[in-house]
């Protein structure tokens, strides 16, 4: 059965300040319900790619389409599309001057102009699911890194996004907190949330993904099903990359 494609990039090229291309030629498509994991050495352009998908970065050339509609970054509809693409970053990016509930409600209230009472109910349900209902009136600084990242996920979910982009959301966490965050992501995947995930947690990548993209120097070097990619990578560069994790594991 062919699934609906919801996000496509064609020949995407991107540089910062007209210097060397960081993304050289990214063509990519994402189906509804699919979980794609992007791996690759640091500096290869993974974060840049995710930010481009969400139109946080201007691109040099190529197109990005959401459900067959080409999106221009500087047009109004970029804002509309962004509401449908949630994003969580590596650094804890909650708004420090707002409580947890304040963080979660801000965008649905101001951007989507939804009804407050209804939003509070939904927020409380989601917080309960990630085990943080008792923190709803706390401030971000009172939370651990793992708790902040779970709140950041809830904040993104409150906008009812059709796609979630996760950029190394556990990279800054102490090891004992990684699990509680990844657990939430695994559950979302199980419920059919469409996601593009950048991660260095290879076990997690294997478990969560439907498809793996291996990037190097601004290009997709290899692409495949996780069971194939992680056990028998085809390209030399992917082999080398996976080997570095092998040594780390020993």
């Amino acid at each position, binding site marked *: 059965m062919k699934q609906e494609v919801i996000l496509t990039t064609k020949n995407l090229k991107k540089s910062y300040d007209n210097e060397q291309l960081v993304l050289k030629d990214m063509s990519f498509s994402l189906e509804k319900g699919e979980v794609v994991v992007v791996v690759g050495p640091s500096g290869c352009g993974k974060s840049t790619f995710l930010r481009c998908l969400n139109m*946080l970065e201007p691109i040099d050339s190529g197109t990005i389409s959401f459900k067959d509609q080409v999106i221009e970054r500087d047009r109004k509809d970029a804002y509309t599309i962004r509401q449908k693409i*949630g*994003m969580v970053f590596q650094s804890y*990016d909650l*708004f420090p001057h707002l409580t947890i509930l304040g963080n979660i409600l801000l965008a649905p209230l*101001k951007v*989507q102009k939804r009804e407050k009472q209804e939003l509070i109910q939904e927020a409380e349900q989601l917080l309960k699911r990630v085990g943080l209902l008792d923190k709803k009136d706390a401030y971000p600084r009172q939370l651990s890194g793992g708790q902040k990242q779970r709140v950041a996920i809830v904040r993104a979910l409150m*906008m009812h996004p059709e796609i979630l982009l996760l950029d190394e959301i556990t990279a800054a966490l102490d090891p004992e907190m990684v699990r509680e965050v990844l657990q939430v992501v695994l559950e979302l995947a199980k419920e059919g949330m469409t996601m593009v995930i950048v991660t260095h947690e290879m076990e997690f990548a294997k478990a969560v993904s439907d498809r793996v993209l291996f990037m190097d120097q601004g290009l997709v070097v290899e692409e495949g099903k996780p069971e194939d990619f992680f056990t028998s990578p085809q390209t030399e560069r992917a082999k080398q990359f996976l080997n570095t994790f092998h040594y780390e594991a020993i």
Partner: protein
Amino acid sequence: MQNLGIQVLFQGNNFLRLCGGLWQSLQIAVISMVLSIVLGMILGIVMTSPKKLVRFLCRIYLEIVRIMPQLVLLFLVYFGAAKHLNINLPGSWAAVIVFTFWGAAEMGDLVRSALQSIPVHQYQSGFGLGMTKLQVYRYVIIPQTVRRLLPSVMNLLTRMIKTTSLVVLIGVIEVVKVGKQIIDSSRYTVPDAALWVYGVIFIMYFAICYPFSRAAAMLDKKIKD
């Protein structure tokens, strides 16, 4: 009866005169501060401009203000304006101009650094949630900037209040000047009037500046944890 120095304060309307002088100082400081805050906000945003030349010009302005002693600026505006432009500025106006010129530069630099200290991810998270530029500034960036600014704004205000004591030198009758007049007029009747008068002025400055600097310290601590 022995001549008590303290009585100098209650002779005639001396105490009220001192308060009047203090009021003059405060007026200059507060008016200059309000103008500085407004102009400084604009300057601070301009200072984050991507254009190098704009940033360079702002930098020069700031350096000039920092290098020049306030007294020199006061003389420059007060006597300079009278002599070369043939404008007879009242001393208090000259003071407001100089203090605003100084305050706007300092305030601008504070606003600039507060804006720049907001991590880029705060903007990106806001945009990522579908907020417009205006919404991101209104709900995310400005509230954080204001919090970071409050302590340093209070500090600037206390510095300004203290520096108003210089305006006596361009003929403004402020609290120190009034004090001097009182001391002079009672030189023979109350020889140690100076001690009492300056003591009271000290307490007056303290009573005004201390709450501000306490508030600044408290806010600063609150923001840091």
